[in-house]
């Protein structure tokens, strides 16, 4: 089965852009929405647990941002993907294919860097 060139451009641009947007969303804590699983509540944007309850009671209302970060990155990547679809084929040929794996690999290293504080915590 072969795929259409437009879908190929979309898929390549989406995967590359998602990785970049994801690490940015993580670094800047840009969640499209925040999930409070204890209450079954979803609110738009990034809400810190301390805005909802006293910091000492933060464990009562744990906030989850992962879904929101992924949604932020998906939204940004969708935009880039759509631009790639309407881009002339000649322009697309100039873009190095290697970005498709260099960007995610770099984003993963960025995620490791941003997660390092966890490994420095002590009891």
């Amino acid at each position, binding site marked *: *089965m*072969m*795929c259409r060139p437009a*879908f*190929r451009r*979309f*898929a*390549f641009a*989406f*995967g*590359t852009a*998602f*990785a970049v947007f*994801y690490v940015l969303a*993580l670094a800047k804590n840009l969640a499209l929405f925040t*999930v409070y*699983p*204890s209450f079954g509540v979803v609110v738009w944007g990034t809400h810190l647990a301390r805005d909802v309850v006293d910091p000492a009671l933060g*464990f009562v209302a*744990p906030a*989850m941002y*992962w*879904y929101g*970060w*992924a949604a932020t*990155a*998906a939204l940004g*990547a969708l935009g880039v993907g759509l631009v790639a679809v309407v881009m002339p084929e000649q322009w697309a040929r100039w873009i190095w*294919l*290697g970005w*498709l*794996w260099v960007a*995610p*690999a770099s*984003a*993963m290293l960025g*995620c*490791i860097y941003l*997660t*390092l504080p*966890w*490994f420095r*915590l*002590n*009891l």
Partner: protein
Amino acid sequence: MAAGGQAIVATVLVIIHGLVAVALLGAITHQTLSTWASARARPGSFFGRFRTVPSGAFTNAIIVLYLVTATLGAVVYLYFRVDIRPTLEQAGRWQVLGFFDLKEHFIAIGLALLPAYWVCWHQPRDEKLTQTRTALTSILAFIVWWGFLAGHVTNNIMGFGA
């Protein structure tokens, strides 16, 4: 739903999540090794037999298994955040939480690579895509292995250094 019922649902989902992940692990590992194995492997040898299986045949199965595993993981993560993570934080298991956070990040990045991965494996005659196909498959294999090991360690945390 009562707390006991929720615990049963969460346990069942984690087990299914783990079983699907094992299938995914096997498929992606086979495909990755076959992309790296030399095409001139001696016939009848381990890698020779490995190469005879068309690696592209795994692609759709890997995508479906990845999607199912990630979806189940995303559901189970809600239970983890409320019931498990606070306990791990109180116990000072920061390294485990760090590894688990990385698993979430890597899985999300891998999820977005699936369309490109599908394209690469469905255009086998495109010579320019060979390197990209190998790299994407390797990245996905790394993500799946990391997710499996981090999830496995977290799931069995009571047995690690307890």
